């Protein structure tokens, strides 16, 4: 089947490429994944804001209850969410939480609190970026 039967998302003519993502986000991933399709980026950022805070809330409860299987499952799920919005470093830290849960490490709670602090700061960045994307596209 020829490639022409697929409409690619990264045509340079979909949107203008003038939009620059926040410098703390993974520019390489965002540019390579979304290209000039800022509509796709906006959708993924919006889905992130709807789903991730809920998942983090569940993870907080799991950490508080020291519910290791749930910590592992939720950390696994959330780490991929971070990747989609360019929070690569947070994704790696969340992977570490997942690994610590797998190995049942006792210091997981202390480590998680640091990850949570970083998440809360970055959440504000994502909120602003989503608004900027909305403004840019309107």
């Amino acid at each position, binding site marked *: 089947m020829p490639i022409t039967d697929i*409409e690619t998302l990264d045509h340079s003519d979909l949107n203008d490429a003038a939009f620059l993502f926040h410098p703390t986000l993974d520019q390489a991933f965002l540019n390579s994944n979304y290209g000039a399709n800022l509509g796709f980026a906006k959708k993924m950022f919006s889905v992130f804001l709807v789903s991730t805070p809920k998942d983090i809330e569940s993870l907080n409860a799991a950490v508080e209850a020291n519910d290791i299987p749930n910590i592992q499952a939720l950390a696994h799920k959330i780490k991929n969410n971070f*990747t*989609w919005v360019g929070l690569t470093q947070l994704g790696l830290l969340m992977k570490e939480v997942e690994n610590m849960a797998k190995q049942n490490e006792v210091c997981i709670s202390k480590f998680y609190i640091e990850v949570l602090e970083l998440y809360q700061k970055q959440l504000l960045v994502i909120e602003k970026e989503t608004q900027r994307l909305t403004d840019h596209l309107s």
Partner: protein
Amino acid sequence: MRTILIDDNNMEIAALELYCQKTKMIQHRASFQDSSMALDYLNKEQAIDLIFLDIEMPDMNGLELLDQLTCAPLVVITTSNKEYAFEAFEYEVASFLKKPISIRKFQRTVEKVHHLYNQRNKVALSSMASELYVRADGKLIRVPYDDVLYFENVGDYIKVITTKGLHIINGALKSLAEKLSHPRFLKVHRSYIVNLDKIIDIEDNSLLIGKKVIPISRAHKSLVINSINIV
């Protein structure tokens, strides 16, 4: 290809749904974040050609879902964890996609899977065949399907065990399975394809043909059970 998406993460689902919309070869039928609901749908609907399937999901993981499927769509495993690749290999999935999945990776995979899908359709069309020819001693020897007991993979060769003797041919079992094109032949293990008409009995994870006990792998067991009439 009639396609469904199964992933407990709604960001992955959102991205894949968009990719599906932009891919003419794909007819997106449904998305599931709950693997049990997906299994119910698949076992009722049947007419699904392709699944994009996450492995790590709560309650029932992707491989457990495959164990319980009563149909045989093409499967693309989507995972962020490479360690599942070997286990998934046993299930003869069509392809793997490592998360996060970009449109480019998705495109390449859909093209590859579409090729397999076309091959499958050709196989279905040619399922009226009743014989095969094996190359031996510079000749092509006709072997009626009814004479074949089973095929066994041994290194780079395949042993064709028939009621009249043994032939040895070059090749891989996977490509043979694609060429055989008859519903009576079923792969029951990575090293065996059997003629269902020649089975004497089935016990736990093995079956008997003649005096040969042939293993049934976990990945193929449900297909075996669904291919025979149990009263």
